[in-house]
């Protein structure tokens, strides 16, 4: 079934159709949450909260990019989780490794990629949340500037500036581990 039809039926209260949308997007939403929060259980909570809010609020979806609309809800859920993580910082340990795709996997390559993944995780965690969100949406989730502007509710200029500053910081952080780059 086409996405538009699923959305229409979900708006009419068809839970099965909504759950098909969940199946389509849960990987992206969970990945976004995990990269934003750096904590697997908080990412799980944020993802579940996001889909639950989306189901309750789907009547308010007025067309356009459903993905951007969903990501906006997920970004808000992440913001709530970040707030509660700040209140109990001891639980903010993430055992899920950040994996990098590779064309020719070999055992030595694997160890290197693992290390690089850890560095990227650290570098992302060190970014201010607004910049982190913008960079994740652009470079990991692959959204264009217009969609990011919809997700974050910010102007295109703000989006540009956040991506610019976020990437510059990441570059600065990763430069120190230049030997890990391919």
């Amino acid at each position, binding site marked *: 079934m086409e996405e538009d039809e699923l959305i229409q039926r979900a708006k009419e209260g068809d839970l099965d159709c909504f759950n098909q949308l*969940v199946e389509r997007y849960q990987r992206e939403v*969970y990945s976004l949450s995990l990269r934003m929060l750096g904590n697997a259980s908080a990412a799980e909570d944020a993802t*579940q909260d996001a889909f639950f809010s989306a189901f309750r609020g789907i009547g308010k979806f007025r067309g356009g990019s459903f993905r951007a609309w969903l990501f906006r809800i997920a970004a808000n859920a992440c913001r709530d989780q970040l707030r509660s993580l700040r209140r109990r910082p001891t639980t903010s340990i993430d055992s899920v490794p950040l994996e990098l795709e590779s064309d020719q996997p070999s055992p030595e390559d694997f160890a290197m990629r693992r290390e690089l993944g850890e560095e990227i995780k650290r570098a992302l965690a060190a970014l201010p949340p607004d910049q982190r969100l913008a960079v994740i949406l652009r470079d*990991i989730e692959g959204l264009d500037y217009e969609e990011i502007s919809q997700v974050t509710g910010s102007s295109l200029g703000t989006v540009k500036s956040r991506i610019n500053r976020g990437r510059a910081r990441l570059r600065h952080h990763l430069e120190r581990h230049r030997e890990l780059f391919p």
Partner: protein
Amino acid sequence: MLSPYIDGQLGPSDREGMEGHLEGCQACRRELESLRATVNLLHRVAMVSPPRSFAIAKAAPKPLPAAVWSFGVLRVATAIAALLLVFVFAGDATHLFEGGLIEERAAQQGTLMDGEDGEVSDKGGTPAGGEEYVWPVSELELALLGVVVVLGGATAVLWQIRRRGGERALGG
């Protein structure tokens, strides 16, 4: 400017300007190269498969109506007790309860409150020769504080239970 340049976000004139500058500036070329490497690295970050399905359960068990009811009542009761406490505190601070005369009790209370007469005067009350009824303000405050703590605690416990129930319902 390098970041929007990589993403093709610059207008034709800005892009040309940038390319002209890059030709003559080795430092910027190096920075561009390193920024590109960073961006390419981020492009390789893999999506993560979620540990479970986030589909919403059809028969999501609703929180028990009784729990909802008692949660609502507890919340309101806590709020009322807290408001009362604030009111009594504020009254205490503004000497609202001092000088409030209840003639018929004055005789009984007079002897008991003798020791506190001086204190009342200090707070700016208007003692009429020990004839006034002094409200047991601090006792009232303590009692209300106790009530607020107990009600608040019960509300928090119930909220946690509801939250877990909600999570289970969402868990599918």
